[in-house]
């Protein structure tokens, strides 16, 4: 009897939260289903199928070009973020050196100056240093704006490693680089995964930096998909747009579901910082 009563009092909660869950999932499911459904004005007019995806594959320079561009940008951003924040986090956690606090504060200051306000000078400056319309340039810029979070994350990761672990390696004849490479890197792996995941999501999804810094054949996927909307005389091909959204979203959703723990940890350490 009490069980029934408790079940009944809980029903409104389940109805409410179930409704919320549907609202949050609906847009993603709607897009995925619509992208293979028949729609007027798209390449998929009759029956279900992948006509819209074919439109995307053959759009201008071709999906593979844009996907390749996205991979170069994302790869550069992830590798550079990981390398810089690992070495930097190690230096900040384990050494004292002149200028240490100044450099750390300067790195965190990037948070105060978001890239939206720096894209105009970056455009001119990248041209000057030979990175005009360059995918690597976009990757480097995106890496720099990941640095505050990444450096902070790696610093606290290294600080959490017991010093004995490192000292044992040093006694065994490793240099500091050997200790880092053979012993510490393994201990800070969760931090590395979090940093890498955030750098990937930020770089893969970024729209604004490439909008300012690259064009034409060098567009990454998000930029190409936004520009694709108005391709045929202002008539919008919604089917192809939905297919593009699905292609952009699948890697993010898969990574999110697989690495959810690291994703949540990243936010938590950010929140505790305050």
């Amino acid at each position, binding site marked *: 009897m009490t069980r029934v009563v408790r079940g009944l009092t809980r029903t409104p909660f389940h109805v409410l939260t179930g409704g919320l*869950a549907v609202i*949050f999932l609906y*847009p993603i499911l709607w897009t995925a289903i619509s992208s293979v459904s028949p729609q007027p004005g798209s390449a998929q007019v009759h029956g279900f199928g992948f006509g819209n995806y074919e439109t995307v594959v053959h759009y201008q320079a071709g999906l593979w070009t844009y996907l390749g561009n996205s991979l170069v940008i994302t790869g550069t951003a992830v590798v550079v973020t990981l390398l810089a924040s690992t070495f930097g986090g190690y230096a900040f956690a384990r050494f004292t*050196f002149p200028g240490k606090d100044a450099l750390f504060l300067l790195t965190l200051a990037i948070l105060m100056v978001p890239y*939206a306000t720096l894209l105009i000078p970056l455009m001119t400056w990248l041209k000057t240093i030979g990175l005009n319309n360059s995918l690597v340039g976009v990757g480097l810029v995106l890496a720099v704006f990941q640095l505050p979070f990444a450096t902070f994350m790696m610093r606290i990761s290294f600080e959490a490693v017991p010093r004995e672990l490192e000292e044992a390696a040093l006694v065994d004849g490793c240099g500091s680089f050997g200790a880092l490479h053979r012993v510490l890197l393994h201990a800070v792996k969760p931090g590395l995964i979090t940093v890498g995941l955030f750098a990937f999501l930020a770089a893969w999804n970024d729209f604004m930096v490439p909008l300012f810094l690259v064009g034409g054949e060098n567009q990454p996927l*998000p930029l190409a998909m936004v520009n694709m909307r108005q391709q045929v005389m202002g008539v919008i091909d919604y089917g192809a747009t939905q297919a593009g959204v699905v292609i*952009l*979203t699948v890697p993010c*959703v898969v990574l999110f579901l697989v690495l959810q723990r690291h994703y949540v940890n990243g936010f938590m350490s950010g929140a*505790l910082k305050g």
Partner: protein
Amino acid sequence: MTLTSSPPARTAAAPPTHRGARSRRNLRAWAYASPTAALVLVFFVVPVGLVVVMSGSDWPLLAGNRGVNLPDNYADVVDHRLFWPAIWFTLKYTVVATVLLIGLGLGLAFLVQEASRWRAFLRTTFLLPTALGLASASLLFYAMYSPQVGPIAPLLDRLGVTDGVVSPLGTPTGALWSTVILIVWRFAGFYMLLLLVGLQSIPGDVYEAARIDGASKGQIFRGITLPLLRPSLALSTIMCVTGSLLAFDQFYILTKGGPDSSTMTVVQLVYNLAFESKRNLGMAAALSVIVLVALVVINAAQLRALRGTDSDTRAARGTRAVAR
């Protein structure tokens, strides 16, 4: 807090007599820090300096630098017909988005804070949109709002909100709220998580004590939850305000600043001055500097407010750290 509590590096406490060893150690430390230093210098410090120089220069998009013209760019930007409307709209959007996101984030956090399988599923569901790019999410909602293929326009028509099946993006009010709904969908889970961390760092025995003293649910919320949650609330507010003040992708993709420039944000105006209307990088840089200075001031003010609340809760957090 972690920043200040980092233990002094023990390995560096080499005897001061070994000057050579010490400077070798400094050199090695700088070698590790050098990639960070180089990146920060080349892609952050130089652009910050350059944006200030450009803001004082006659710098057309195609012609390049044509020398100093201070303070013409600033005067031109402030006199631009869209300058004040863009600021006003950006502030309005920021207030609406922040109030809704923090309120909903807190509500969602309360709904999922206990541990159960259903709540774990809910958390994942609410967080899922945060994995999408803002541009992808904007494109997604652009299709959802379309009167040709989307479900929203017919629904609004049937509810009598609009007259006929028309895009909700067609009116200034509709465009603002349509964008806000997209942003709430995309970011509510993010703020839920930030506030959830705060909620879970409140020790259970504080609630216990209040309940024994006979406090009502409302009293507990106002007397315990809200004050102890202030640091998390403040951090969420800072992030939300900063993000909203810099809004670009969502408006660029959904409304293009329209209808009739009614949803033009300040950062969109930067883009507009640089590439569309004036093709003038000097003016765009001047507006960037104005935004940059405003943001630093706003952030500093908010951080001060945050630090003010920090001491109240340090004790509570300490308890939690020990318990862990």
